């Protein structure tokens, strides 16, 4: 090192620069930082809540009109909204409504949790191990396009008419989605994070845990969301096809019972409940989870 050249006299400028620099920097920081406030409740209401409410009311109005103006005058084909409401109300009064919902939701969520436990390590293996990816990667993405209803007949034959068979069908529907979500999440991890991780000493399992998994979280959560949709669909298919008194009445069985009794109001009740529960779980669990993940990374663009 050229030592004589680099002895630096601590002159006036040194001291002056120190003070100036701190002030200058504080100014730059203040100018360039993004201020973000919360959206006012009113705006949320007008932009997010009002439009879907209007849409639902419109559908109900058209439905009621079809019945009132006797455009469709066969109640075995199209019951009035009020009839469906009565059936729902009746089920509520008899204390059965929550029972139907709980039977299906508990099955669905438990099955989804199993799918999570299997799909996550599977996805990680496929994403990180070349041989495994080459071997089962294409099959895994292919399975996503196979309707899970197709698994109901073999599941009934292998496992019989019981809850295990329902769970098997949910697993076969949801595991590929969850695993594929994680695989695409890992594939999209920016190489700069991997390099940065390596220079910090995060290699091997440490790298997977501290860098790869958190970086892949947005893709993983998208996979979970889709996995839930597939779980719910698979479960309904299983419940409709394999309804059996001992299994308890879930929403799928309710639909099948309605069909057997030619009770169109009951069929509509079941369809509405299946739809509402599926949406509700997504809105209550998966959408907030996804928004939180994206927002905390600044990936959610406002407006």
């Amino acid at each position, binding site marked *: *090192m*050229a030592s004589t*050249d*680099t002895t*630096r*006299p601590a002159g006036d*400028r*040194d001291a002056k*620069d*120190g003070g100036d*620099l*701190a002030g*200058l*920097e*504080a100014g*730059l*920081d203040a*100018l*360039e*930082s*993004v201020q*973000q406030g919360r959206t006012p409740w009113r705006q949320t209401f007008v932009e997010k809540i009002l439009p879907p409410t209007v849409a639902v009311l419109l559908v109900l109005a058209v439905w009621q009109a079809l019945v009132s103006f006797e455009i469709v005058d066969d109640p075995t084909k199209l019951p009035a909204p009020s009839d469906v409401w009565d059936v729902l109300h009746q089920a509520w009064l008899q204390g059965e409504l929550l029972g139907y919902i709980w039977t299906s939701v508990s099955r669905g969520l438990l099955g989804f949790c199993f799918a999570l436990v299997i799909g996550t390590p599977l996805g990680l293996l496929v994403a990180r191990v070349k041989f495994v990816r080459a071997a089962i990667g294409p099959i895994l993405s292919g399975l996503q396009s196979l309707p899970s209803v197709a698994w109901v007949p073999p599941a009934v034959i292998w496992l019989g008419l019981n809850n295990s068979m329902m769970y098997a069908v949910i697993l076969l529907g949801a595991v590929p989605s969850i695993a594929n979500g994680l695989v695409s999440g890992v594939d999209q991890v920016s190489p*700069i*994070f991997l*390099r*940065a991780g*390596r*220079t*910090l*000493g*995060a290699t091997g399992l*440490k790298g997977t845990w*501290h*860098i790869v998994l*958190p*970086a892949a*979280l947005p893709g993983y959560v998208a996979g979970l969301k889709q996995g839930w949709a597939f779980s719910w669909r698979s479960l309904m298919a299983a419940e409709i096809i394999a309804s059996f008194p001992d299994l308890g009445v879930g929403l799928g069985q309710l639909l099948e019972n309605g069909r057997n009794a030619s009770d169109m109001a009951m069929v509509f009740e079941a369809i509405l409940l299946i739809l509402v529960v599926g949406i509700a779980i997504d809105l209550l669990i998966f959408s907030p989870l996804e928004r939180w993940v994206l927002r*905390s*990374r*600044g*990936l959610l663009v406002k407006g």
Partner: protein
Amino acid sequence: MATTTTLAKAADGTESAEYAARIEHVSKSFAGPAGQQLVLDDITLDVAPGEFVTLLGASGCGKSTLLNLVAGLDRPSAGGISTDGRPALMFQEHALFPWLTAGKNIELALRLRGVPKSERRDKAEELLELVRLKGAYGKRVHELSGGMRQRVAMARALAQESKLLLMDEPFAALDAITRDVLHDELTRIWRETQVSVLFVTHNVREAVRLAERVVLLSSRPGRIAREWTVGIPQPRRIEDTAVAELSVEITEELRGEIRRHGQH
């Protein structure tokens, strides 16, 4: 023989090493469309402890490749590199992890270095204070400006307590005002921490503004073309006459190197 050693204590093991990085006859070639392409040719360079060296060169001089080799992210085709411990590396992109807050990014570096949990928080706050970002501990990366992000990245690199800090055009994407400020910051931090810096850039004035020694690389393949020792006292300003004069001289040399490629 190609070697990358992370060695470096002096023979008796108590003294610190006589260099922060030693690059000896390093060559690197990559398989390209036209066969093996030589990117770096016989580079020999020492960075002394506490020294600030800038590597200057036009595109294709392999300066980032050389930095990757020193960082241990890649291996040389020939020659050897040894460093005093594992170097820290800063990129042009801040490369902060967006799923962690500014403070937690620094703590991750501390954790991977084996600093016990109880000490990490204080240490991270201390480092944030060093880069004048007190109060940014809980801020998310996207809430910070470009200049603040690079300062957090600097704090994270310093958290590794490496003897050598490698910087790969870390200020190239910043606006001019912020870049000037970060030059001042880097000079201050370098003098406070006594860390050795190997700084890659294609900006001649930046190289002269910061370094004690400027090393000019020629392009395709990268060879050391010339070296200058910068005797201008710190703190310097990028608009100082002495900085400008030396920059003119180096720029002439750099242009000469670039012109040679047009003649083929």
